[in-house]
């Protein structure tokens, strides 16, 4: 088993499934296509399960590594592997894919074949992003995800789908092109100042970061920052998100919220921090400022929304602000919390989008004002929504709390000011979510159309159930999750903090230079 | 002894193939080609390639040529018999072919062959020709062999697609 290219298998199985659907299945056989797509997703999840069980918790480095030379002249290799930071994201992705496929059975009614092909291709892109250990490879996968997502939004989206899709595509492309510049700058910096070889190999490059002068690091960090921050999205770059979320089909929103956004935060942890340790430290106040603005601003703007999906989208801005805050606390608790919060956000917000999708499918409206008093007609749905909402606002005992708590404690450790501002986000989070809940579920059932609403059917309950179980599991016993991440996170934190001394030295030199 | 057999087979081949090329009736041409292949199989046996000879008969004569006959029978060939048989470029080509023949003759005249390598072969020897071919075909040429099978598959699909009657929708 150890020799099996498990990661490659997991990553490319959906693509293979997509190709099979594309080539061998007729458009009219929608049932077969759905069944097949589901089977592929489930199979992918099943073969990704060994990652959970065979993962060595004590190992901080990369596991399940595969390395094959790809473009040797410029030092690109097909180098994949996972560590504690990515293992859960990979598993989350495979799980979300099942949910994404299953929730689309009835939601998508046209061009179903192409839809599932896009969905499966998207899975390959996302998985590849998380397992790539070669920066070039990472970039390739990072970009690959854009295309199917573009189609998902642009073809199967809502009324303003074209605007949203193009905005999403161009905006993220703009960021990632800058990131590519950063990657190349680092690549050549490594050639000149680091190992002296042309390589994109992340493991080799990890050691190089501290040797690069701070002035250059700052520029590279800015390039990375824009690339990842747009993806996250952080405060001033977030406006594509509500549009994309609102217009995307349910599965698209789920995947966008659950996985795609994580690619940004993951990028920070995987690349920006360990590759550019000194610059990361220099940027801490700036990043934290943006995160906190994101937290509070996102929450406040979410409160002003009249569209449920938009509200959830802005809540994502707020939640990801928490994640970024945790990451840039640059200590064990903060980064661990940030990592866990990435998973949590994927689960909770994914579930929220699913739930919105459930009523949207029945009523074809997302305006809060069109609803009201739903808890009378759809009790099961109400309960599921309530649990998800509570998980989203971080009720202890559910997953959101553990992550938020660790983030805040990490931030507090860094500076109590950070935490003091961030807790405002918790209060506001409760406010907008409860208000939403009240407007949708409480009160009188005054819209006659809502009386005909049917409750969640078995399929919907079934695809929500795993997420709900995960919410409780992480909330009550997060140790298996934290334990898997801990070693790797500690390593990253150590790499960043170990570079402190040379950074100060560099700063000292700079000041000296200025003095002269 | 065997050189006479060779001349016999070679002569038969040349005659039948010349006849084949010149026939107006396609069926006759095909049957003549079958005969050519018989003689060719004889040449193969003389050269110690009895497996290839059997394959030649089994596949070429028994398979491919039957396919030809089958197709010819499906087609309307009587018309062609009454048409002009030779292409307009025929004369030029004939001259060119003859010239090419002379040229090949010249080339062959220049080539000196080394003494043939000694090779134990006789009809009915064990382990014989079949084992020898198998040993090479499934080791050294395994990949080409598989490629050939893919080629066959592609040809089969292509043939079916091309020859299938279009179903009117």
């Amino acid at each position, binding site marked *: 088993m150890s020799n099996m290219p498990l990661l490659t298998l997991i990553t490319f199985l959906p693509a293979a499934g997509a190709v099979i659907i594309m080539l061998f299945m007729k458009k009219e056989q929608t049932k077969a296509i759905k069944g097949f797509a589901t089977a592929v997703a489930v199979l992918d999840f099943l073969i990704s399960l060994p990652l959970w069980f065979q993962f060595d918790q004590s190992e901080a480095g990369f596991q399940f590594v595969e390395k094959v030379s790809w473009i040797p002249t410029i030092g690109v290799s097909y180098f994949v592997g996972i560590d504690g930071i990515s293992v859960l994201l990979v598993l989350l992705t495979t799980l979300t894919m099942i949910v994404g496929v299953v929730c689309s059975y009835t939601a998508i009614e046209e061009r179903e074949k192409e839809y599932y092909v896009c969905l499966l291709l998207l899975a390959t892109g996302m998985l590849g992003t998380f397992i790539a250990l070669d920066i070039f490879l990472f970039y390739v996968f990072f970009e690959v995800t854009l295309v199917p997502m573009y189609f998902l939004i642009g073809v199967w989206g809502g009324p303003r789908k074209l605007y949203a899709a193009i905005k999403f595509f161009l905006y993220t492309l703009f960021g990632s092109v800058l990131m590519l510049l950063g990657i190349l700058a680092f690549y050549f910096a490594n050639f000149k100042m680091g190992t002296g070889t042309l390589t994109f190999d992340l493991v080799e490059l990890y050691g190089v970061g501290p040797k690069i002068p701070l002035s250059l690091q700052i520029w590279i960090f800015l390039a990375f920052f824009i690339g990842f921050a747009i993806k996250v999205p952080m405060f001033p770059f977030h406006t594509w998100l509500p549009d994309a979320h609102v217009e995307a089909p349910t599965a698209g929103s789920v995947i966008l919220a659950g996985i795609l956004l994580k690619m940004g935060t993951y990028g920070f942890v995987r690349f920006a921090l360990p590759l550019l340790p000194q610059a990361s430290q220099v940027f801490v106040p700036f990043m934290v400022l943006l995160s906190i603005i994101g937290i509070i601003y996102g929450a406040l703007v979410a409160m002003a929304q009249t569209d449920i999906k938009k509200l959830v989208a802005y809540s994502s801005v707020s939640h990801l602000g928490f994640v970024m805050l945790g990451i840039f606390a640059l200590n064990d608790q903060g980064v661990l919390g940030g990592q866990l919060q990435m998973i949590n956000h994927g689960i909770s917000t994914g579930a929220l989008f699913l739930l919105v999708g459930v009523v949207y499918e029945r009523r074809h409206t997302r305006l809060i004002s069109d609803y009201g008093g739903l808890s009378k007609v759809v009790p099961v749905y109400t309960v599921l929504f309530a649990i998800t909402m509570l998980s989203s606002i971080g009720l202890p005992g559910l997953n959101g709390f553990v992550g938020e708590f660790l983030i805040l404690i990490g931030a507090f450790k860094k500076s109590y000011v950070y935490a003091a501002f961030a807790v405002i986000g918790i209060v506001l989070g409760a406010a907008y979510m409860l208000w939403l809940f009240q407007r949708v579920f409480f009160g009188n059932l005054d819209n006659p159309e809502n009386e005909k609403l049917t409750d969640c059917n078995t399929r919907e309950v079934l695809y929500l159930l795993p997420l709900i179980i995960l919410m409780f599991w992480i909330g009550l016993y997060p140790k298996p999750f934290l334990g898997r991440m801990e070693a790797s996170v500690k390593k990253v934190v150590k790499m960043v903090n170990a570079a402190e001394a040379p950074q100060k030295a560099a700063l000292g030199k700079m000041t000296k230079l200025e003095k002269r | 002894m*065997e050189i006479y057999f*060779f001349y016999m087979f*070679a002569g038969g*081949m*040349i005659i039948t193939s010349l006849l*084949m*090329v010149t026939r107006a009736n*396609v069926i006759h*041409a*095909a049957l003549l*080609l079958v005969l050519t*292949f018989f003689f060719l199989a004889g*040449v*193969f046996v*003389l*050269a110690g*390639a009895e497996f*290839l000879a059997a*394959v*030649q008969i089994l*596949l*070429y004569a028994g398979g*491919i040529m039957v*396919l*030809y006959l089958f*197709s010819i029978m*499906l*087609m*309307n060939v009587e*018309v*062609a018999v009454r*048409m*002009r*048989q*030779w*292409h307009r470029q*025929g004369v030029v*080509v*004939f001259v060119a*072919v003859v010239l090419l*023949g002379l040229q*090949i*003759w010249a080339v*062959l005249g220049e080539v000196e*062959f080394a003494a*043939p*390598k*000694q*090779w134990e072969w006789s009809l009915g020897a064990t382990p014989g020709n079949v084992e020898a*071919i198998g040993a*090479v075909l499934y080791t*050294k040429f395994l990949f080409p062999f598989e490629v*050939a099978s893919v*080629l*066959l598959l592609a*040809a089969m699909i*292509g*043939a079916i697609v*091309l*020859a299938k009657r279009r179903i009117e929708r």
Partner: protein
Amino acid sequence: MIPMTHFLVLGAILFLIGAAGVLMRRNAIIILLSIELMLNAVNVTFVGFSRHLADMTGQVFGIFVITVAACEAAVGLAILIALNRDRTMVNVDEVNLLKW
């Protein structure tokens, strides 16, 4: 022992006959048959060299040639049948739409 040159000459003659058939005849089936002949002329050469060099490769290639011939026959005849059905023609020089 048959001299090597015999095989080569035989191969060349058959090949030229085949080539002449391909280039001079109008009937498509005859052309295909001539192509088969050319392929077999090559086989003669292969087997001759195999004999001469005491090497099995020549015979193996003979088998491959037969494979290719089978493919060629299948596809060629399929094309002819299709042509015959649609255009009722068997002469190759009538099939000349693919020009300038």
